[in-house]
């Protein structure tokens, strides 16, 4: 018998969720499975009867949606495209702010890397960090700046 499950609770859950244990509260599924495996015949008979009723309810299965309906939904989505244009403008506005912030952060970071490196040599970890923070081209820009110095 599974731990934390008794007949009263099993019957309660069966009356609510039906025989399909995957529908039961997740925390109680394992205990219910254990309980059912070693349950008396009387309990198993009730569970079987509920399973039959579940099959009746499943008669009202969802029909697959038609291609026509899919096309209709997508055409309505297309009609609402002007809303997107407004969003694109918002995104562009945000991008401008990000670019300004990014440039500032990049200059601070380059200053940090140049000033902090005690050996005057760029380690591979620092290069990787640069690439991760500012993209793959950033390390090249950084090296060029150092060489020119």
């Amino acid at each position: 018998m599974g731990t934390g499950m008794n007949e009263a609770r099993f019957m309660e859950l069966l009356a609510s969720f039906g025989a399909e244990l995957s529908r039961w509260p997740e925390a109680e599924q394992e205990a219910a499975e254990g309980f059912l495996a070693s349950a008396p015949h009387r309990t198993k008979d009730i569970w079987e009867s509920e399973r039959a009723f579940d099959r009746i309810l499943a008669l009202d299965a969802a029909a697959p949606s038609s291609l026509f309906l899919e096309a209709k939904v997508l055409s309505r989505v297309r009609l609402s495209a002007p809303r997107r244009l407004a969003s694109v403008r918002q995104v562009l506005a945000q991008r401008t702010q990000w670019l300004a912030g990014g440039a500032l952060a990049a200059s601070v970071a380059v200053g940090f890397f140049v000033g902090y490196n005690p050996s005057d040599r760029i380690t591979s970890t620092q290069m990787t960090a640069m690439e991760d923070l500012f993209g793959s081209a950033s390390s090249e820009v950084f090296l060029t700046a150092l060489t020119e110095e």
Partner: protein
Amino acid sequence: METARKLRVAFVARPEQAARRLQDSDRRMWDPDEELVGRIGSGDRLAAAELVRRHLPKMVGLARRMLGDQAEAEDVAQEVFLRVWRHAANWRPGQAKFETWMHRVAMNLCLDRLRRQGRNAGEVSHEAPDPKASATRSLDEKQRRQRVSDALLGLPERQRAAVVLCYYQERTNIEAAELLGVSVEAVESLLARARRSLKTALSAERADLLDGLETG
């Protein structure tokens, strides 16, 4: 590999922030629609088509079972996807699964329609089945499906919503409770009452419905 490397780098550069981000990502549930919604938010119509293909049958199914009318159900489903399209750019992942949000929108649209039309428990336009008639002839597949559908529509609104969400839409008890704005115990109680009523409503035809399953 790439993510792990980035996290390692981030731990070196900003250990506290990176640790917090890792905890957040552990806490966040995995959402199979997250990437798709992100693309829809950037105006990707192919992603919109994919999301429609993925969820349209479920949205129509939910609305049809709640409203009892295929045409109305399709209207509701269309409205759900319009809202997806409008709100995808503002979607904040991690708070709830996107599918749960879609269910919330669909359920609210259905409940609004039912209330506007003054329809509620048991006020179903379908005729109740005649037990004598069903005893003398076997039901075909469409009729069997209609009987179950009618029994569902005869349930009070909240019981029906609980059954639709937990039995047909495969929502967990926790998600159903959240969607209906009640406790998980209340969902259990709604389901138990609904199941009892459904059994009573279908009792006269139970054998016939089961026979149909075995022969069909």
